[in-house]
């Protein structure tokens, strides 16, 4: 778990990785992170550098991103959630960009999402077309990409009922091999039934179970 100044979901993700994925996990201050000993990296949500300039823009230009790029070249699974996804697009690790919601307001709400072309360590156990629920909480979550061609064939998470004006309803996107996944919804908030409102399902669970199994037996 990489913690920048202003990251605020790091302990939430550590908790879920330990409790749900049954993995060892720690929150590491961004200047202390070295790629060597870790089996996977999560960049959690929050407001790195207070969202100054643009969400994720400053964190994306810190040295730790070089470490992460090196890890990815060697097959290190990387997950960016919310601000982590914004950082990964700012760093051009994932395609597209995240703009202000079309309502111009911060939105915190449970939404329905559907998975397409799931593969790789984060989505190993997700069946094609799975429709489930997760909450969003962001002001700059409107995904933008020039052409659908760029994303076609990649693992995708799409909104069912677009809450923010995202292009092609995209809520999350992974690299072709699924090693790097970024998404705006918060899977760590939808991983334990006691936190899921009545009538909604535990949509984040699939991701956490996937990474647990992937790191133990491969993907």
């Amino acid at each position, binding site marked *: 778990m990489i913690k920048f*100044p*202003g990251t*605020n*979901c790091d*302990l*939430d993700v550590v*908790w*879920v990785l330990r409790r749900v994925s049954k993995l060892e996990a720690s929150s590491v*201050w961004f200047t202390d992170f070295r790629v060597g000993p870790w089996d996977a990296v999560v960049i959690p*949500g*929050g*407001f790195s*550098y*207070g*969202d*100054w300039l643009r969400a994720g823009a400053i964190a994306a230009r810190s040295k730790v991103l070089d470490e992460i790029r090196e890890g990815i070249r060697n097959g290190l699974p990387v997950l960016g959630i919310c601000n982590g996804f914004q950082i990964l697009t700012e760093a051009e690790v994932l395609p597209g960009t995240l703009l202000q919601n079309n309502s111009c*307001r*911060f*939105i*915190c*709400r449970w939404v329905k999402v559907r998975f397409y072309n799931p593969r790789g360590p984060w989505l190993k156990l997700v069946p094609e077309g799975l429709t489930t629920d997760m*909450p969003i*909480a962001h*002001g700059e979550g409107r995904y933008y990409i020039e052409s659908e061609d760029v994303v076609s064939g990649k693992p995708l998470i799409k909104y069912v009922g677009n809450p923010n004006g995202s292009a092609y309803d995209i809520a999350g996107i992974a690299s072709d091999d699924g090693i790097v996944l970024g998404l705006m919804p*918060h899977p*760590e*908030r939808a991983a*334990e039934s*006691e*936190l899921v*409102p*009545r009538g909604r399902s535990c949509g984040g669970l699939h991701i956490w179970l996937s990474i647990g199994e992937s790191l133990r037996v491969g993907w």
Partner: protein
Amino acid sequence: MPLSNDELVEIRGILGREPTKAELNMFEAQWSEHCSYKSSRYYLKLLPSDGEDVIIGPGRDAPAVKIFNNYAVVFKMESHNHPSAVDPYNGAATGVGGIVRDILTLGARPIALLDMLFLGDPTDQHADWLIKNVVKGISDYGNRIGVPVVSGMTWFDKAYNRYPLVNVACVGVVEISKLVNKVPEANDLIVIIGNTTGRDGLLGSSFASKPLDSSEDYLNNISAVQVGNPLIEKLIIDFIVDITDLGVVKYIKDLGGGGLATAVSELTADYGLGATIVLDNLHLREHDLRPEEILVSESQERMLLVVSRDDLKVVQELLEKYGIQYSVVGSLDRSGVIKVYYRGDLVAEVPAKALAKPRIRLRDAVVPKHFNELNVEVRITDIPEVKDLRKLMLKMLRSPNIASKEWIYSQYDYEVGIRTVVKPGYGDAAVLRLVEVGDGLGIAVKGDGNPRYTYINPFRGAANAVAECYRNLVSVGSKPIAIVDEVNAGNPEKPDHYWYFTEMVKGISWMAQELKLPVVGGKVSFYNEDLSMNSPVKPVATIVGVGTIANIRNVVTLDLKEDDDLILIVGTTYPELGATEFLQVHLGLELGEVPLPRPSSELRNAGFISELVGLGYAKAVHDVDVGGVAVAIAEMCIKGLKGVVVDLSKVPNRGCSRYEELLFSETQARYLVEVGSEVLDVVVDLARKYGVDVGVIGRVVGDELVISYDGHVLTKLKVDELVNVYENSLNELMS
């Protein structure tokens, strides 16, 4: 200049000479109403603050109350009314920042925020600007520091068109053994951490201790409003949580109202110490600040730490890791005197105790003239019959005071921290799990206040706010353990304004004693008046309460769960239509006798509800509040997407002669409960044992809310239509 001539004479007496500019500012800040409570302290002593679980009561920046085994909850409320009237975005944002730092002073991790907002009519242009910016200020600040806004309340009234009341509360948790609560000693160092000191918020607490008189006042006071930096606040939170774990800081204080002057004077006075402060050491934003400005600047995100010389290095290392600026500005001694140096000159030399605690001011209180005009008996025979109940019901659900506040709470990240088990809109109170304390353990939190009640009858209104908070905590299945209060009143120098304050404190005090709820902390906000407005700012007592939950898997929400279940009303209904939403919506009247506070019924009925929840019989619980049974049952239908057939003739009552009384009375101490029909006999037996009046008033069925009286259908409303009106009307008003 808020210092009176008498006070100036007193200051000369204390010092034995003319005060310097720096000393004058220190006295002005510390002797302001905001910091010194000089007009309120006498009455605040009435509030019951003791309890076996109270670890730290009023007096420090925040109180601490024991929950479960080794943990304490630290919670407190404050207002940012004046700043929000002038600069709603920064005013509301820095209110959040300030209350979070109060919680940090004991080393607690902040886990939840609540906002209690009293806002103007959204159709008024100025009010609309205030509303949008207050909410955005809280949203931008709260979201960025990673503390979820989980609960609160909102009231709309044109009385707040130009002057909103913004009350914010924060809840934190800490292991009792790690509470930052050591005794500062001579030779310890004073370290100021966080933001640079600049010119924002100069004498802000003094500005908040006088009325805003004219439009020019709003513009001229912009420099008294602080500007927030949530990133620094977030780093301070992370630092305090870590340093508390290491146990090396002895004492922490927020640099809030009155800035450095107040923080140092309260620290030294509380422990009989003195201090030497060298202002040159402090990190500044602007280098031409004068010493008298540095002392009273209220720049945000600054805290004072007392550290022993041996531990300084550890503290410095952690501050440097987080990139937090800091300065060692001075040290403590046994002199009892605060000495302030700047560029080699002694700019202030003040006895700490005389500065910290000005004499109590006894103010006159008289009943305002309009009290008798407002407190008239509302006779049912004077109320015209409701011709179109359906239309009236929809009008009530559309009223912004009733309608869903989703437009507001969806702008807050209410889930960060993954603790929010019962989220906004789902229950009478928010429920947070506490995984660090133990599996299944949690707390419920809620904030309440009703300015219509407190304006008409401040004693009853304040007492009812305590009772309502108590009911809301009970509804979700928690055991209420303590409350904090915020009393928002007018100018204490005006006897008919001050009377509201005294009556509200008496009302809170009485009900808290009756319900055995310690009032562990609170705040008073005076001078909430705006002479440029046509209507007065309505005074209100806001209450925030915390309850403990032994098993969060048993908490109860308010949405209807299953067809064929029964709806029970718990508690007796009286003909109390005075000061109700019904009177306002039906006849446009805000008057009448405020519903009577009923502490013994509250205790009895709450005991029964707790038992039902504990036994697992209650599938949904909702307290009956503004709008009466009509609104309560409609909300249960809306949230559960289920219909109900209600028979009002089954409502246990005393002296009600028309159905409007049964449907719209706001009698206190009542709940609606959904139970399975198979347990009805057991539940009724239990009610008898508790001496509680219950009536089976309805059954969950179909997709309509049908309201009838003894077989005669009064109205039918499609649940879809209720949902549409309730969920969307505030959204439509705001866009």
